[in-house]
Structure formats: C-alpha cells, structure tokens
C-alpha cells in the first residue's frame, strides 16, 4: 500500500521534472544567435504595445493554470482511498454559493481583460498620419514579396528598408488582377508578419489591407509568410532592415539609380536568349510582370523569398535550375512557362557557364562601393 503511494509519487515527480526541463529548454533557447523573429523581443512601439497587453494576462493565466493543475494533483493524492478502506463519503451534490462564485470571478477577470484589449485593437488599427510616414505597398506572391515605395516608386523584393523612428504604413495587396477570361492568377492568401515590429495581417486577393510598422532601433528583423500558401510556403521569408534616417536616405538614392547604358545593353542581350524581362524588370521603378525587380538584386542580402544568400554560386545555381533549389510548380509541357515560379533553364539548353555569366553580371550591378555582401546583411 505504501509502495503504491510511492510509485505514484515517483511517477508524478518524473512528470514534474520532465515538464521543468521542457520549460527551461524553452527559456534557454530564446538566446539563439540569429533569432530576429521573436514576438517576445519587440523592437518597435506596436509590437511593444502587444507584448505589454499580453504579459499581465499571461501571468494571470500561468497562476490559474498552476493553481488548477496543482489542485488536480492535490485532490487526487489528498483524497486517495487506501486499498481495503471503505470510507463513508459525504455525498455533496453541489454548492450554489461556490458555483455562483466561480462563475462570477472568471467573468470579472475577463471584464478587466476586455477593456485594454479593445483599446489596443483600436489603437493598432489607427493609420499613422503626418509628413514622416513612409507608405509602402506590399504585394504578396507565390512565394516572395514585392515592396513598392509609394513616394519614390522604388520597387524591390523580400527586403524592406525602413527609417528608424518613423511610422511605416503598409498597404497589403495581392498580385494585380488579370483581366482575360479564365484568368485565375490573382494569387492566394498570404500573411505578412514581422513579429518584432507588429502582429500579422493577411494579404487577401481582391482586398486592400492595412498594417503599420515602426522600429525604435536600427537592425534586421526577420519575418515570413504566416498563412499557408502552397508548396513553398516555408520558403516565403522576408527581412525588414531598419536604418538611421540618413542611412535610409542613402539607400533610397542608390535604389533610384537606373542601370548604366552598357548594363542595359548587356541585359537585353540575355533577354533575347532567355526572355528574362518577360517576368523580371531592369528598371528601378518598374515592377516585373510576375517576378522580382532585378535592377538592384546585388544589393539585397538574400534572394528567392529571402532564402539564399546573394552570392555567385547560389545565383548561378538558381539561374541554371531554380526548381531544384526551391520547390515550385513546374510545367512539364512547357518548361519556360511554369505554373508557379522560375523556369528550369537547364532544361531548355542553358549551360552552367552561361548561368554563371548572368550571375556575375547581376552581381556587378551594385550601387554600393562596399564589397559584397552589403554592410547591413552582416548586422
């Protein structure tokens, strides 16, 4: 009889230790070297607002949770019947006062919770105004992001540069609707999420959504698509690079520079061979028809949905055979017109050397005097 009690206690202790290990592992893991996608480490006022709202109720929940789990273990052990014991148990059928009590107390807690919740909802829904607001249109695609700066018309992909301390107002849209009958390429639902700057907002085809960001310190903040959007949903990442207003302005100026005449001529040569510009763009202010703007691709830290570092070897492999690096919807009947994503050019006769030549060309069009990779990628 004693032995059985001990066995149960030992098992309970084991479970408690296991739980503690898990909790500690959870806390310890937070300090991952590159973790820049952490809702618990806000880097701007909106994300702070959310965490500040959440934290007190989180601890209330922890107290209630520990209380109920503890009470469950307590009643089980405290009122255990010893083997062979026949206890004449008092048959309580209920207690109206108690039951009203544990109906009303949670209701009161929830009422307290409701007030700041609703206030924060409306505060976060308010659009920032004023001359220093940066307006950016975010277009979510399968499986990358296009950013268009509304004032300067810069078009870039997967890497959003913002000035520290200035509110950024995002307009979230799907791909531009096609008008031809039977056209369905109006995209699917994605969700824009950079946890250290704000919560997420879905990008819904046919709708225009709003989200605001603000960083209170320079740095890189990672994000990724949070709504399942098909095959390469996991490979639809992005980064926000928050810079001092001066650095930001310098970046804007570099982005505004068009390619040199020589570079444009070279690009048109590649275009004749591989029709790059049917999908991409070589002008800083013109979006590609369905694919990222390549004008300043060399100045972005990563490419292909913020998945691969922008270096010669990755770019070469990508141009040569992109679907082998990132799952995409190929079209066996017509390799040059995949259902979703970049074609496999090796299947239409491109050699590795040709791919490498194009990669080198793209990398040479850098507006920075610094060597690769750009300085902000190292932060």
């Amino acid at each position, binding site marked *: 009889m004693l032995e059985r009690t001990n066995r149960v206690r030992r*098992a309970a202790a*084991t479970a408690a230790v*296991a*739980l503690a290990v*898990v909790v500690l592992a*959870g806390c310890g893991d*937070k300090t991952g*070297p590159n*973790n820049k*996608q952490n*809702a*618990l480490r806000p880097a701007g006022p909106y994300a702070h607002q*959310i965490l500040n*709202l*959440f934290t007190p109720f989180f601890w209330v*929940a922890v107290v209630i949770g520990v209380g109920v*789990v503890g009470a*469950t273990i307590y009643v*089980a052990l405290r*009122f255990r019947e010893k083997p062979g014991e026949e206890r*004449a*148990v*008092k*048959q*309580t*059928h209920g*207690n109206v006062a108690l*039951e009203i009590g544990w*109906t009303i107390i*949670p*209701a009161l807690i929830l009422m307290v*919770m409701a007030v700041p919740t609703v206030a*924060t909802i*409306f505060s*976060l*829904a308010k659009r920032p105004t004023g001359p220093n607001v940066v307006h950016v249109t975010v277009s979510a695609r*399968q499986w990358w992001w296009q950013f268009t700066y509304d004032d300067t018309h810069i078009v870039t992909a997967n890497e959003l540069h913002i000035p520290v301390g200035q509110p950024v107002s995002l307009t979230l849209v799907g791909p531009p*609707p096609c008008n031809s009958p*039977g056209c*369905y*390429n*109006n995209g*699917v*639902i994605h*969700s824009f999420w950079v946890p250290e700057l704000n919560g*997420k*907002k*879905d990008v*819904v*085809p*046919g709708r225009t959504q709003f989200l605001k960001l603000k960083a209170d310190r320079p740095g890189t903040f990672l994000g990724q698509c*949070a*709504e*399942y959007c*098909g*095959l390469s949903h*996991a*490979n639809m990442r992005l980064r926000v690079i928050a810079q001092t207003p001066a650095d930001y302005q310098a970046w804007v100026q570099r982005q505004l520079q068009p390619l040199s005449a020589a570079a444009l001529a070279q690009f048109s040569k590649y275009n004749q061979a591989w029709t790059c510009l049917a999908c991409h763009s070589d002008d800083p202010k013109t979006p590609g028809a369905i694919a990222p703007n390549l004008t300043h691709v060399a100045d972005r830290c990563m490419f292909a949905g913020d998945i691969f570092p922008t270096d010669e070897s990755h770019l070469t492999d990508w141009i040569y055979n992109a679907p082998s690096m990132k*799952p995409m919807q190929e079209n066996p009947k017509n390799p040059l017109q995949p*259902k979703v994503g970049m074609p496999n050019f090796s299947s239409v006769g491109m050699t590795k050397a040709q791919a490498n030549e194009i990669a080198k060309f793209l990398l040479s069009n850098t507006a920075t005097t610094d060597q690769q990779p750009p300085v902000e990628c190292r932060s």
Partner: protein
Amino acid sequence: MTTVEDAHALVKAPPLRTRLTQRPRTTTGPFSWITTVDHKKIAIMYGALALFFFLVGGIEALFIRLQLAQPNGTILSAARYNEFFTMHGTTMVFLMGMPLAAAFGNYLVPLMIGARDVAFPRLNMLGFWIFAFGGIFIYSSFGLGGAPNGGWFGYAPLTSTPMSAGLLPGRGVDFWCVGLIMLGIGSVATSVNFLVTILNMRAPGMTMMRMPVFVWMMLVIAFLTLFAMPPVTAALIMVFMDRNFHTNFFNAAAGGDPLVYQNLFWIFGHPEVYILILPGMGIVSEILPVFSRKPLFGYSIVVFSGIAIGFLGWGVWAHHMFASGLGPIAVSAFGLSTMLIAIPTGVKIFNWLGTVWGGAVRLRTPMLFALGFIAQFTIGGLSGVMHSIVPSDTQQTDTYFVVAHFHYVLFGGLVFAIFGGFYYWWPKFFGKMLNEQMGKLNFWLLVIGFNLTFFPMHFLGFEGQPRRTYTYPSGMGWDTMNLLATIGAFIIALGVLVFLVNVIFTARRGEPAPADPWDARTLEWSIPSPPPEYNFATVPIVTHLDDYWHRKYTEDDEGRLVKLPAGAAIDTDAATEAAVDPHSIHMPSPSYWPLVFAMALPIIGYGFVFKNWYLLALGVVWGFFGLNGWAYEPATEPDAGEGH
C-alpha cells in the same frame, strides 16, 4: 421477429419471396457484422475503424515530427509534407474524433437511457458505412493523383483555383471536398438518430434532468452537428465548383470573395471544436463521480454549461480570422464573445474538482486519464482565452502556439478522455478488464510524451515559428525545442503501442469482467458485461439521477454514504432475467440496404472527381436502387422469428 434464440441460428424456412435479395438473418459470425443494426456492434465497428485512422493520422504526425526534428529536414519533400499535415488534421478531426464520439455514443446512449436500441437502427448503420467509405475514398487519393494538400481548413482561393492553374499540385483537393461532403451526410444521419433516440426513447422516469452528463453532451453535439454541417457543405460545394466548373465564388479577379469561404468554414469549424470536445467532457463527467464515490458536483450547472458552450460556440467563429482584416469593430466583438466561452468552461473544471474533493478517490487507470484531462484541458483552455486578446492573437495565430493550444484541448483533453473511456467501459464492451499495470504505463507514457511534444510549441510560437512549414532554417533558436517535440512524439507513439498490446493481451488473457466492476452509478452497469443484444430484459423504471447507484446505496442523515443491504433494492441482473422471457423481446432485423446505398456515394464521388459522367450516373442509379430497397423493407421483419 428476431429473437434471442435466433441469435445462434439461421431461421429455418425462409418464406417464398419475389424479391431480388433475401434479407440477411444471421446475428453471429463475421457476416452478421456487415448487416448488423445492433447499436453495440455498430459502435464497435466505429471504434475499431476510428482507432485505425487514429494510428494512420499518428504515423503522419510522426513523419511530420521527423521532418522538423532538425532545421532543413529532408525526410519528406515539400509536396509530401503538405499532404501529410493536411491529412493528419483531416484524419484526426473527421476520421478519428467524430467517429469515436459516434462509437461511444452508439454503445452507451441506449444503455444509459434504458433503451433497447437507437431510434433508427438502419440509419445508424448507414452512418457507419458512409464513414467507412468516406475515409477509404479520401485515402484512395494517395494512389489516384495526389492526396489533399490544402490544409484541413482548405482556404480558398488556394484550394478553389482550378487544378490547371497549378497553384496547388494534384487533384487531392477534389477528393477532400467530395470526401468531406460525404462524411457530412453520414454525420448528419448519425446526429438525427441520436437526437430522436435521446428525446424519444428514454426509459420511464428517465427525465431530461436524470440523464447522465455523457448523454446530455451527445444531445448537444447532435444539435451542433446538425447545424454546423450545412455551411461547410455549401463552402465545399463552392470550392469544388470553382475548381471544376469555372464558377467564381472565391475568385477575386471575377468579383468573388475569399473571406466568404473563411466565414462559412469557421461557422462550421468552431462548433466542430465543441463537437469534438463535449463528448470528452461527458466521459470525464461519468468517470470522476464513480472513482470518487461521490455524485457529480452541481450536475445541473455542468449540464447547463455544456449547453451554454454549445450556444456560444456559434458566436465566436471569427476568432480564427483575427489576422484576416475584418476591422476593429468586428474583431472586438468576436474577441469579447470568445472571452465569454471561458466562463462555462471554467465552471465545468471547478465542478469536476469539486466532485473529487472530499471523495474516496480510487486512482485506477480511467481516473488517471480523467484527472489528466482536467489538468491538460485547463492549460489548453487558458491558451485559448489568450486568443481573445486580439492584438496578441495577431502574433500567435498560425504559429506553433496555436498548434500547442489545440493539441492541449484535443489531445490532452479529448484523446485522454477517450483513453479514459476505453479503460472505463472496456469491461462493458467486451466483458474483460484491460490490464491495470499496462494501463498505468500507457497513461504515464502519454502524459510525458504529450507534454514533451506540445509544451515547447507554446514557446516556438512566441519565437516566431509559423505552422504548416515543411522546413525552417538553422539559427532561428528553434532547434532544441523542435527536437524535444519530436522525441515526445515518439514517446506518445510508445504509449499508444502499450495500449494496443494491452488490447491484444486482454483479448487473450484478460480477466473476465462482472456486470459492475467499478461500483458505478449509471444504468449500463446494471446489465451483464457484455450486454445481451436486447440490452435490458425489462425496461428499467428510473427514479433518480444515477439510478443504479441508488439501488445500491443511500445516504444517512448527514449525507454520508450507506450501503443498502443486498436484496433491499431490486437486483436487476437476476430479478429481471427471471421475470421476463427474453424470447419475447422484438429487435430490429439486419439489413443490406444501408450498405448498398452507402456504396453509391463513393461511386458518385469518383464520378465527380474524375468528371466521369457514366460513373456518376451508375452511382446515382445504384443509390436509388439502395433507397428503394430500404424504403420497402420493414424495420422488423414481420415473418422473422418463431411466431409471436
């Protein structure tokens, strides 16, 4: 009429008929299972098949966890991973959770209300066969052009865009739409049957407020299923039409609206969560009083909070859409309604603790699972309340935090309740006690494995890991917790394996169970284990809540438990067997027709998926043939049996 004596033999001389098929008459042997209308046999088939799908869905989960054990995992391709997480969710909701509720409900509801069968025995059988064919139909997609891969929630326009546009590979979503519509038909049939059975077939004296809580919860989910299935069926039909017939319900380029799908799906989807969990709450409400030797604390408030959860469940669907851009007024309203659900849920938890408080607690396996349910469900409930804090939900939604939350509710809650229910009612189902030592091992493996798998996921969510991603880069700080989760998943698998071993061991060498091994409270324990085909030789006359308990015990002036001397109350087992000749009990006759009709559905389904109109026509004709046969067949054969 079929009588008990017939149970062991074919009726000797079937009368001459001009019918195409002869009505089946056997009630024993393997063939009898196919044509049975006995609610207990149907329940066992539901349970066995649902357990099979539980294992299949579990294996999919193990693959998912293997893939995510390390960053940049290569166990599964992206396409396969997307199929597996879609099918894991679809399987656990539609092919495990709901059928297991149907299994427990089918077996127990008639026994608990003192009925001899359900109201519509052949409709009951139809529900099972639709479930079986629907499950096989959906899984056949793996070999017929790709499994469903749009997620169990199947958001349009990803799912509704025609296959030719190639936004999502394969025709799996077609299988998914048609399969779920099919399963929905079965669920509605089953819930109508439960509704009528519970409302109309209660034994004399079994008033609504004397029904066991489990029966109440089955009544609530029957209502929920009846009203939740139509919106999702409409949504699935629209998705299928958009995919195959060039309609534009969800095509924004042509003026459709993707958010309409989300609203329709979650108007089904949130009540669905309660359809899954309420039977679990019912099971726990049965186990706790028995193993505490006390009545349920505040029976009526537990019942009413179950009903309240059922009602409030209709007003919270948009909390699945807090990031969809509904606007601050709508999300505030749905945030507040979501908070309200916490109140009846909290009441239930406190009443369960109040039940155990002061009792004589026997920590047998069913009780351990019930206590595990309370603790883990509470954690899942609390993380659920956090979703009502809308701004923080925009950080948590679609991350591993949500995965942690609903697994605490559906695994830590529902699956624990189901295992508790297995250990508790196994002796009633099969006449043998499951092994207690293995049961305890099973429990502790599941507790440790479950918490190791899902507790770290709360933190993974906070730290930015989204759901439904087949890979993640290294250096995000997610590696350790993902590895722990994978280890936990395999400990869960070990726990489930122990259960299976226990089942096999019990079948071979299990200790025979008496009618009432746990000294229990409700009517099903007043009859032999396993019960005879006709359940109750004499229909019981009910005078109390927990009527069977009151035949065994009474209370002294201070409310203390006093055992009645044997024979003071009616000993049902012996007394009624003697009083009533079981040969005179008329039971419904077996039938082929529900099976024949159910077969038409997958044929129609394949016709739609492959746009093969001949197949479709064949299915429709077959269906009419089945319905026609059914319509002209009496529930109980007038000339069956040996003349009454």
